């Protein structure tokens, strides 16, 4: 009896310890710590990354470049930035052939280009295995100070363009052996609605809705859906975030306190998640992983605690 109790307490303490120590959720941490090197998972795969010209997309591309025999498609709007990223990837791993990395610039919101882009890829690399829908934009303003056009713009890019692209790719997956993987960049803001970024939270919650439905439709097939939820990461998302009136905020200060994770580390953990076909991964420095665990598993207690301390943690957005 005492042994059982001790075991339960030890189990409890260990896992709580991991939550506070790791910079990701438990499963992702275990796969990262004890799993096989993700490089082996991407061997011979073709990976398409949108929003690869900066931030997490760039970090992800560089981590992927460290793997052998992987074909990478880099997409964004800015061709010159994409070329820079390609060059840096080639510098990182001398064994990659330059034509293993395809620079494919396009605008996510140009829906007519989605099919053409896919055709370009399949013509060059003969297949597509993984789509990482990472391109996206943020927004910062008090809830009621947002113009409705800003919401529409945000949904256009973060949700509708993503959905459209994924539908095009899904049709391809279904027609080609009913296999493939769709990885989508959500956010911890898509798990817990944080203050002063309501439209952003809404777009990320929308992605969860769309892709969890899709995952359930794809049960039993070899098509996997991975939702990636990072916390604050060093990128241009803050600088380019829309204010309530639709302008760029120009401020890179994070909405929430704490050290931002580097894009490379985020990319590394995203690869662990995608490579191991996890359903959802949370990737963040302290204290957000424990907070999100608390908020999602103990909503009542979280509400009471946040009600007491939250007002001190929330910063007002600068106009």
């Amino acid at each position, binding site marked *: 009896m005492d042994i059982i109790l001790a075991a*339960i307490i030890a189990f409890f303490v260990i*896992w709580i310890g991991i939550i506070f120590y790791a910079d990701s959720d*438990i499963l992702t941490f275990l796969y990262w710590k004890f799993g096989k090197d993700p490089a082996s998972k991407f061997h011979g795969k073709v990976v398409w990354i949108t929003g690869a010209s900066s931030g997490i997309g760039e970090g992800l591309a560089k981590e992927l470049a460290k793997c052998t025999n992987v074909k990478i498609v880099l997409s964004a709007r800015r061709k010159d930035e994409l070329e820079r990223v390609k060059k840096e990837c080639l510098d990182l791993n001398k064994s990659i052939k330059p034509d293993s990395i395809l620079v494919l610039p396009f605008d996510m919101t140009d829906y007519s280009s989605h099919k053409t882009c896919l055709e370009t890829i399949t013509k060059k690399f003969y297949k597509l295995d993984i789509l990482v829908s990472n391109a996206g934009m943020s927004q910062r303003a008090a809830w009621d100070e947002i113009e409705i056009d800003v919401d529409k713009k945000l949904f256009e890019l973060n949700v509708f363009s993503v959905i459209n692209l994924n539908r095009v790719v899904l049709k391809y997956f279904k027609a080609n052996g009913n296999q493939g993987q769709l990885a989508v960049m959500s956010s911890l803001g898509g798990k817990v609605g944080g203050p002063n970024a309501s439209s952003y939270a809404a777009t990320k919650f929308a992605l969860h809705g769309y892709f969890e439905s899709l995952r359930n439709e794809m049960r039993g097939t070899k098509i996997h859906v991975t939702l990636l939820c990072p916390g604050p990461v060093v990128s241009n998302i803050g600088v380019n975030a829309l204010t309530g009136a639709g302008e760029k905020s120009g401020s890179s200060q994070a909405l929430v306190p704490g050290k931002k994770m580097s894009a490379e580390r985020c990319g590394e953990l995203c690869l662990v998640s995608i490579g191991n076909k996890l359903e959802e991964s949370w990737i963040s420095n302290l204290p957000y992983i424990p907070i999100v*665990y608390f908020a999602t*598993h*103990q909503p009542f207690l979280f509400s009471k605690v946040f009600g007491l301390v939250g007002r001190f943690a929330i910063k007002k957005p600068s106009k």
Partner: protein
Amino acid sequence: MFSCLISCLFSAIFYLAILPASFLFGARVLVKNLRGKVDPTNEIDIKGKTVIVTGASDGIGKATAEEFATRGARVILACRNLQKAEKVVQDIRSRTRNGELIIMHLDLSSLSSVRKFASEFIQKYPSTLSILVNNAGIINPVGVQKVTEDGFEETFAVNHLSHFLLTNLLLPELKKTGENNPTQASRIVIVSSGGHSWGTLNFHDLMYQKTPLNDWEFISKLYCNSKLANNLHNLELAKRLRSEKANVNCYALCPGAVDTNIATENGEKHPVPFWAKYVMFPLVRIIMGKDAREGAQTTVYCSLSKCLSHHSGEMYRNCEFWDYSKRPKLSEEDAAALWEKSEQLTGKI
């Protein structure tokens, strides 16, 4: 998977253990702070004075003896188990060098022992008795009825009759000290119990020797009756002392729910019901329970507080007067009747 498991564990630990425990201990702190306290700056001086404490070998009696010793009194520990009393003296001495601790044998289950003790005390320490604390008491388990060598039911005999006789035998001493100290009345303190409110006295068969005893589940009727007798004794005693204009006051008290060994002797025959043992008693113990030292506070209050110098015949609890609205009214007729009956019974042998 892991997070769900942990969340379950956390919920179980928090909602089933931490939260209820916090409520219980919060209640305990609240209850403790609402109680009255002994005020050591407002006490009569008992340095060098003589105090008798019955049942001083354990529990509340031991704590009471220590309190008196610390204040420099000469404490007579009147106990039936002299070895236990020796250990108590050693223990008290490890904490205080003050006062005098004297052990004398007193077995309250035998009226002859009471008489022997009284005459020995009067011989050794004449005209010195300032305070008599009738503290000793027993609880027999539910359904257990024992008879003393005098033919009385044990609980009634020890808790009431023997103390009644002891008080009467020592009353002349107390009155003398009262006369010699007009500013400081002698005191008789009777340790009763809140259980008295459930007691009844059937004067035709006070000790259930003829009528069958249909006892209760978790507390013995015999104990409650004996405590009611204590209170009625206090009432009638005060009345008589007043009419004699003696400089002696008497007080009864309820020490509260105190964690002592009173009930652990011979308790295996009639098991306490499950719900009482694992739910009610623990709850009472956590929220309202006192240790022996806290339990002795009201005794010390009644014995020493100057606030009570001109009161007599009342009942106290948590170092305060126990409001009449919160306990049943005691009958003066019953008090007088009990006195007569007790005189009869104790005068027999």
